[in-house]
């Protein structure tokens, strides 16, 4: 599962029958990452931090094994600190501090 931030809703009137009328949302993993589209069975608002599943779990999470989703939102995060650094960013921060001290 990965953490995404909801960017906006997405309207696609001409769609395959299998997608039904499920809500589609544009989500972004980081501000610099490319935008992706996720199925939303939960009911999120733009700006929410959410957990999403990929691979075949995305089909099950959207309601049925046949549902054609490769990314489905499974929960809204109650509290999330946007500034929480990832492992690579943490390393960069340490290096930056070290250089600053020198």
């Amino acid at each position: 599962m990965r953490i995404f931030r909801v960017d906006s809703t997405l309207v696609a009137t001409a769609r395959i029958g299998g997608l039904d009328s499920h809500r589609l949302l544009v989500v972004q993993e980081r501000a610099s990452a490319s935008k992706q589209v996720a199925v939303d069975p939960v009911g999120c608002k733009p700006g929410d931090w959410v957990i999403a599943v990929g691979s075949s779990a995305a089909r099950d999470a959207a309601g049925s094994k046949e549902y054609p989703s490769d990314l489905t939102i499974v929960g809204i995060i109650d509290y999330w600190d946007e500034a929480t650094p990832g492992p690579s960013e943490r390393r960069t921060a340490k290096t930056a501090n070290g250089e600053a001290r020198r």
Partner: protein
Amino acid sequence: MNIQRVRSDLVATYRVPSLAEKSLRVVEDHSGNLEVALDPVGAKPGDFVITIGISAARFAAGDPRITTDLTIGGIIDHWSEERWRS
């Protein structure tokens, strides 16, 4: 799912039977990388589309026996190049 733009049609007459007689399109992502997607919707060049990957692509094609790993799921009503690249 990803947001991609249809670049052109793709004709491949000699193909494996498991691809059936499905239409193929060349799609590009926001940095210009090209991929081939199966198109059950009928998208035109220039349309912004939602593409479905991995095993869900086979279900999106309408029959899980179809051997695709990228299928167009829908045409986006309103989208712009600026939003795509930002």
